[in-house]
């Protein structure tokens, strides 16, 4: 759901996201441009000065990191908003993605 742009890279790390984890979007992260052709968004994180692209589903997940939703609730939000193929383990996919967002410092742990 994310890809590196320019010289930036996201390193995958095995941060385990439990159902009850609450994440909050880093306030320094702003959308810089929406790429109309492929529907992606350009994000800039002012804290670490990383530039990233993110697709609409990824942005939906990021926008749901509001500090008052658990990972399980975010999974539910996606189920309610997107058509998801039955053979996809959505919970695992979303939690792995949240782990990536955490590693990229786009989100931090919330109070919960």
């Amino acid at each position, binding site marked *: 759901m994310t890809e590196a*742009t*320019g*010289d*930036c890279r996201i390193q995958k790390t095995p941060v385990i996201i439990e159902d009850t984890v609450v994440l909050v979007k880093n306030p320094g992260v702003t959308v*810089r*441009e929406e*790429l109309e*052709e*492929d529907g992606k968004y*350009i994000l*800039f994180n*002012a804290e670490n*000065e990383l*530039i990233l*692209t993110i697709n609409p589903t990824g942005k939906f997940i990021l926008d749901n990191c509001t500090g008052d939703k658990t990972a399980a609730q975010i999974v539910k939000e996606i189920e309610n908003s997107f058509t998801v193929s039955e053979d996809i383990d959505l919970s695992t996919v979303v939690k792995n993605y949240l782990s990536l967002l955490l590693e990229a410092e786009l989100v931090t742990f919330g109070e919960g």
Partner: protein
Amino acid sequence: MKSKFSFLYIYLTDRCNLGCIHCWQSAPLEGTGKYSSLKFDECKEFLDDAVAMGLENITFSGGEPLLNPEFHRFVEYFYKNSIRMTVETNGMLIGNKNILDTIRKYRVYCAVSLDGVNPETHNKHRGNNKAFDRTLESLYKLEQEKIGFQLIMAISKFNYHELVSLLDMVNEKFKTCNAFKINIVNTLGRAGEMEKDGLLFKAEELPALSEEVAALIGRYPIISLHVDPAFVDFKNFRLKFSCGGYCGYNSGLSILANGNVSICSLGKQMDKYLFGHISSIDLKDVWENNPFLEENHDNIHSRLKGICSNCIFRKQCLGGCRAEALCAYGDFFAPAPRCQAYYDSGNFPKSKLIDPALSSHYPG
């Protein structure tokens, strides 16, 4: 954390066999000026220290580096120490059997300049009416020997119109060409005259230029563009690009043709950026304790001024070519001149500013 030393830029000689109209170093022509050349024995101890410190890559440059009579000795040394080598050359001498044998045997990667598909264009850019034929002859030999190489096209308004036809020729004739880098001629050195003639691209023309190059990448996947990222649209980020003239001074140093060690060829013009002579310098001490390097290695992005202080690419780009900024403004931390001009003209995209509300003029 201290930057890791891994790279040396080695100016083997400042002598040159061409008189390129855009030469950013104003290298003296053979027989027309005083020049220096590095001697291997003088460098050996310094190079041993560099290898011990973790040297990984070196680039030979000049002048024309293949004019150094000891090229073979340098290459053999680095090969034995498993250091990756690139030689930036005008290609005039690669056809020489000894040089070709050295390049093949010691796996030196050649980055060869070729500025046009028409002989007249390349020859005029290179100031020599035999340049095109000689360089082509060399490229055919590399092709024949199946030695991979990079081509570098220095573009200005003088030759840009030949880009696509040159790429077509490369596609057709040179299967071993695995990279095609496009450099935009800047205002340094002899190119100052080209600027007076209106032949250099202006800042506001660069976004359209990068757009055109990005559109070519499907047909010619080997191309890359050497331009500041501010001029590349986000949608074109798949284009391989790098900062205009970014010297990588935070990962290495340069040895000038006279043996002085500097951050880059800037040391030729300004003593302030010289760290000593290879015969007497303690490389480890310079790298770890020189006040200038100490101060700037890891945080230059936060010291840049003008538009560079407020650009979201500042951490990747590090302000581009510092020599260019110094020549334009007399300040090592001055903004990249083309980026500043772009901002001053009101065209710099707000989406590429860290704080769009902040004024980023220079001087402030």
